[in-house]
């Protein structure tokens, strides 16, 4: 059973539907006692990093997620949820993340070659570097929507995508997983990634 962490950020409809589609029982909750019963956790998120990080901290969810991760429970961060796994983000200031992975989140602005639009929005190809979750998916297309990306994360980097420069597409370290793209919006490739995660 998969627990989808609800901390007041983002639209969880597609994530729930995609779990149902792959036959995985999933529930949405903001209650640590309920989420603790799940076999694995998904940390979703869209919007601003600072706002999400504050909500995680204020709801007590940050401490709970860190504790669950330390116990070895599989955790998958998606999009902003992946970015929150890192130490800090330079999205409009400098904000602390969960610190579960080494690295930082930085703006694309000023780092991409001229002429590339921000946000990086649309289908782009995976170049898998390691890990288990995306094994065999090099060259497959997944759906991205983001304006910030993780860097200095060599320790956990499992896939990049090319957008003028290599952009961190996925990370993996021990029981901690993250996708910058949206597996729940990436067609059959995305569903296959979720299917693999729920079988860990």
């Amino acid at each position, binding site marked *: 059973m998969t627990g989808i962490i609800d901390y007041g950020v983002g639209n969880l409809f597609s994530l729930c539907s995609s779990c149902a589609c792959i036959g995985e029982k999933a529930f949405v909750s903001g209650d640590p006692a309920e989420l603790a019963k799940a076999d694995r956790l998904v940390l979703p998120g869209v919007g601003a990093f600072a706002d999400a990080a504050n909500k995680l901290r204020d709801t007590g969810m940050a401490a709970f997620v860190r504790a669950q991760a330390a116990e070895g429970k599989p955790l998958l961060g998606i999009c902003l949820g992946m970015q929150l796994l890192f130490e800090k983000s330079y999205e409009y200031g400098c904000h602390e993340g969960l610190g579960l992975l080494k690295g930082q989140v930085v703006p694309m602005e000023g780092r991409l070659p001229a002429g590339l639009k921000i946000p990086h929005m*649309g289908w782009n190809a995976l170049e898998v570097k390691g890990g288990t979750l995306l094994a065999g998916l090099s060259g497959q297309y997944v759906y991205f929507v983001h304006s910030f990306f993780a860097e200095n994360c060599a320790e956990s980097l499992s896939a990049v995508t090319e*957008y003028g420069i290599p952009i961190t597409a996925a990370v993996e370290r021990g029981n901690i997983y993250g996708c910058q793209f949206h597996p729940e919006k*990436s067609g059959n490739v995305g569903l296959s990634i979720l299917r693999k995660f729920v079988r860990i």
Partner: protein
Amino acid sequence: MITKRIIPCLDVRNGRVVKGTNFQGLQDVSSPVELGKFYSDNGADELVFYDITASAEGRKLFTDILTEVASTIFIPLTVGGGINTLEDFDRVLKCGADKVSVNSGAIRDPDLVRSAARLYGDQCVVLSADVKRVDGQFRVFAKGGREDTGMEAIGWIKRCVANGAGEVVLNSIDTDGVKGGFDLPMLEAVSDAVDVPVIASGGAGSAEDFVTLFQTLPKVDAGLAASIFHFGQVKIPELKGLLKENNIPVRL
């Protein structure tokens, strides 16, 4: 390399797709759920559902259908038609839409784009602009292209993007329905003016029109069409094959 997106648009009235015709292997071509699934399984990169219902019952039916579509199709969904308030945004987002397209609503309430972008993020707000040449000027039209607002289009689109529209669908009324190709001069003017993704709409009559679009205007991100896909004149896998042959990046 990010790929060019191919987007079928489904107009839905009273729960049924308008214009749907003959598809092999599809029992009910007027079912938004079946047709949406068909496109999703056959290479569409994104789907646009446009609610052209006027009645409240029709609207309820539309949101029910949207919920069903979003429960079975796992590619990005954009929803438009009758989006006039933040409550309308909320209504369709809760049913599983990823992006919400505003047209007349943004003309009527100049603050709608800004407040929606603040609440849901720029990536969620799509400006759909119906534009037509009048007296040598690009003009914004309202009410499904029936009413000249008198506003110059390029400036208006720029203001909407500055207010937070994360994407622009440009429907050229001049080329719409003609099937003689996309409106390249109009698209060029818009894609030079904004730095968010621009989706070309109106005028596609063949697969070659998409090749011409992306070769002439590499800044355009996506091509949208309805009837040529619905009538099976252009099949998306074949279209994408042709684009790839012409070195245009696509998701195959």
